[in-house]
């Protein structure tokens, strides 16, 4: 049973139910307490994140945590069950008895019927790993405030909810490669490390979902829920990245973040459009009809993503940065998919 830990000074959070554990999950990656900044991306990491996780934010986190607890009250540990045979109490399967097996698990009813010795197998109850895949590419800098800030707040909120549910939560920023992660760990007291980690996340690089998810799937052996928080502006498409997760037995959870001005830009006249990731230049003369065509194209792109996820029973949420993050999280609660 968890032992109450004394309340810690600082933001008013609920007492921790368990001690924080840091485990290292990714093989081959040196464990670091603090991710360091890359020199190449220093120029884009100077956005002010000091006010992201202020007292107001923490209050909202607490509220969300209470809502989550009320919604799924009665469950003590590791709500999600993995389909793994182990020492649980729920019957999972039979197998043939072999010499040396524990005869206490022999299903005598089956023996009485078919005169064969079979062992009863039970489900293994273990805690779920939640991986928050945070898009830290350059396109996430767009917006005022930047989409990245919003994504960070959402990631922090989901992390807190997950930690509150005794799940192991890790945060892995990515762009054209996987950035330094925050290793998955359990315990609500970890949340401050999460804040600190998010404040120091590097921003930069292209959006390459496919290679990053492929690499992730190969590096992280413990399967679990992979929450993709991104704008999904990958020139090669979003399908490859999401499929990599699916094919590698991860449970994708898609959360698309966009800025309203991306979907509905107020441009006109002769402009040179600069892709913030590739640096590609495109001279355009923006007229009203062109703007309307762009808006339609953007909506179509998001609809494609939605259809893709829906067709594959992948939870999908789309939000703009003006929607308060707590509203989004509550919607996620209502729709389900993150908490069960």
């Amino acid at each position, binding site marked *: 049973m968890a032992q109450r830990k004394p309340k810690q000074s600082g933001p008013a959070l609920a007492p921790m139910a368990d001690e924080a554990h840091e485990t290292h999950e990714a093989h081959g990656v040196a464990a670091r307490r603090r991710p360091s900044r890359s020199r190449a991306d220093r120029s884009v990491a100077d956005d002010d994140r000091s006010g992201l996780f202020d007292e107001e934010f923490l209050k909202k986190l607490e509220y969300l945590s209470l809502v989550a607890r009320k919604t799924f009250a009665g469950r003590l540990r590791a709500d999600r069950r993995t389909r793994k045979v182990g020492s649980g109490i729920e019957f999972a399967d039979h197998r043939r008895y072999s010499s040396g097996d524990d005869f206490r698990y022999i299903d005598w009813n089956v023996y009485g019927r078919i005169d064969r010795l079979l062992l009863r197998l039970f489900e293994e109850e273990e805690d779920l790993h939640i991986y928050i895949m945070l898009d830290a590419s350059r*396109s*996430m800098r*767009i917006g005022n405030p930047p989409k990245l800030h919003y994504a960070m707040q959402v990631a922090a909120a989901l992390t807190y909810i997950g930690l509150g549910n005794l799940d192991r939560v890790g945060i892995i920023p990515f762009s054209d490669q996987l950035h330094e992660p925050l290793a998955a760990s359990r315990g609500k007291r970890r949340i401050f490390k999460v804040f600190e980690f998010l404040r120091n996340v590097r921003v930069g690089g292209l959006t390459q979902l496919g290679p990053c998810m492929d690499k992730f799937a190969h590096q992280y052996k413990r399967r679990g829920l992979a929450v993709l928080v991104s*704008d999904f*502006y990958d*020139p090669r498409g979003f399908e490859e990245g999401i499929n990599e997760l699916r094919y590698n037995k991860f449970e994708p959870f898609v959360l698309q973040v966009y*800025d309203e001005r*991306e979907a509905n*830009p107020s*441009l*006109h*006249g*002769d*402009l*040179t*459009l*600069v*892709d*913030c*990731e*590739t640096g*590609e230049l*495109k*001279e*355009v*003369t*923006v*007229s*009203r*009809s*062109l703007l309307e*065509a*762009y808006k339609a*194209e*953007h909506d179509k*792109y998001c609809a494609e993503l939605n259809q893709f996820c829906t067709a594959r029973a992948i939870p999908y949420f789309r939000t703009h940065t003006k929607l308060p993050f707590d509203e989004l999280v509550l919607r996620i609660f209502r729709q389900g998919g993150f908490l069960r």
Partner: protein
Amino acid sequence: MSFLAPIPLGVIAWTAAVTAGLAVAAYILKMRRRRFEVPFSTLWQRVLREKEATSLWKRLRRLLSLLLTLLVLGLLLLAATEPRLGAVDRDSRSVVILLDASASMKARDGGKDGATRMDAARAAVRALLEGMGGGDAAMVMRMDGQTTPLSRFESDMPRLTSLVAKVEASDTPADLRRALGAAADALRGRPNPMIILVGDGAYDPEALASVTWKKPAAGAAGAAPVAPAAAAAADGGKRLDLIDMSGIDVRYQPVGSSGENVGIIAFNARRYATDKTSYEVYIEVQNTGKRPARRKLVLYNGDLATDVRTLELNPGERLRQIYSRGGGEDTVLRASLELEPPAGAGTPAAGPPRRDVFPLDDQAWALLPARRKQHVLLVTRDNLYLEGAMLVYDNIEVDKLTPDEFEARLAAHKLPDYAAVVFDDYTPAALPPPPTNLMYFNPQGEHSPFRLRGQVAHPHITEVNDNHPVMRWLVLNDVNFDSSSVFELDRDKGEVALASSVRDPIMAARRTADRKIVACSFSLGSTDLMLRVAFPLFLVNTIDWFASDEADLLTTYATGTRARVPLDGVLGVSEVTVTAPSKRVSRAPLVEGQATFYASEVGVHVLRALDRPAGRAAGRVLAEVSLAANLSSPTESNITPAPRLELGGAVLAAPEGFGISHPRSIWMYLILLAAALLCAEWLTFNRRITV
């Protein structure tokens, strides 16, 4: 459509080519575009790929914007050519209107309610301007003692009319010759030139005779003017002062009705040279009308009437009179002609009171030079001849001191202020302070006012500076001298020789900023000059020069004349202020002590030289002189209007052919259309229609 083209068409064509080229280049050249960062250009590329199918229409819309800009530029340039609707006006004329603003135009016979001829002339000019055709260009010149263009050639008749409304008649006579010359020069090279003279015809006949003119034949209004060389050859007389008006259509519009006038055409006064307390007055009065006239002539000395007499003049009679007067301290004399009241005046039978039609020449002023009594000190041991000669001049009061007494009183500061001190055979070391003037006889030593270089025996005066006021009317060539010192004069210091003996100056004068000095290098005891008539005259001239009493100073001028007036040797001042009788203050240049005076009004003018430029804070008055100006013009006083004028032997016809026409200028509409197009282009751009 026709074009006035105030700007040459070549310039407009060149401007059109340059501006159109700039406009096209601005569209063709890649302009710096705003850069805008987008997160996902792939979406934009998809959209633009679809839009490429309609790129032709997009190019056409941008071309529309370029065409609009070129159209606006074209409208602006077209407006600059001043186009006019309708056929080319072949009868457009270049007209110079000479508006007579001379003194005679102040005669009050221009119409009812005491309107002057000037009012009638302005109305006539207004009618001419309003009746000008759409293609006519007019210039109005004001004609009096000077010729003043009021505008350049323009077709804006309302503006010209407003300028004409401000013209008032002056006190100066008309200088027709100068006006015709200016008009002919202004019309040189212009199409269909025409001069219209609007006035009363009171002009100097010599002015009309100094014009070379041949009346253009009917229908030859567009003929090019004859070149001046050809005109001179045709004339054969080779008069260089002739004004060539060949090829110019000259018309005359008379104004005025009455010719009855009696005026003062000359008035002056002067003091007697030997008795400056007395003076004589000269006056000339003429009846220019066709009926006998009766007037009362009053002479005033200041405000005091000193003489009143009745004059009866026959038509055309000119009366001259000279009065001798004595006494009277005031220096301003005025003559006034007044209408005699008719018999039974004040009764209904007498009818309405008569009024002088032309009152300007009924008043005349004359100034007497001011008399200033001079307090003179004679420093001499004993010289009866000198003392006696001083007594000749009753305008001086003489004191006498010996040299010792002079030095003692000067040292004790008990010497009164004298206008002049005469040193006889005495050269003091200390002098009375300025502005006391000094006269020396036989100065010696280092304190001599002029440097001495030796002696000459038995000098004989061979050269006399007659231009100097001190030497006026003096005969010295038979004066005997035993001996005399010789002065060495420094011309840079303003020292001038008054009399010389074969280039050896023995009489000299100098004026500085604060005093004047006259010196004779000989002793009175070594000459018989004191026995000559020239000696007292020399003393009188010297004292008068000290007192700035210029006997030759003219103080009365005719209006419209320009004269150089000496201002008592004022140096270091470049201009003087002139206060006219109307209290209007103007400035006149002062060069080498002489001011240029232009008499513009009848009355007394005051010229002042200040030690500070006019316009700044008032400074000390360095010199002041009063001058009188009178009309004094028989031509202007003869106000009988001339119903016709002859020029070159031909009678000048009245102006005709001025019909009321409607303005057909459309340049303003073009400007407005261009502005409307600019607004439309701005709207379409901002509405992203032409973008």
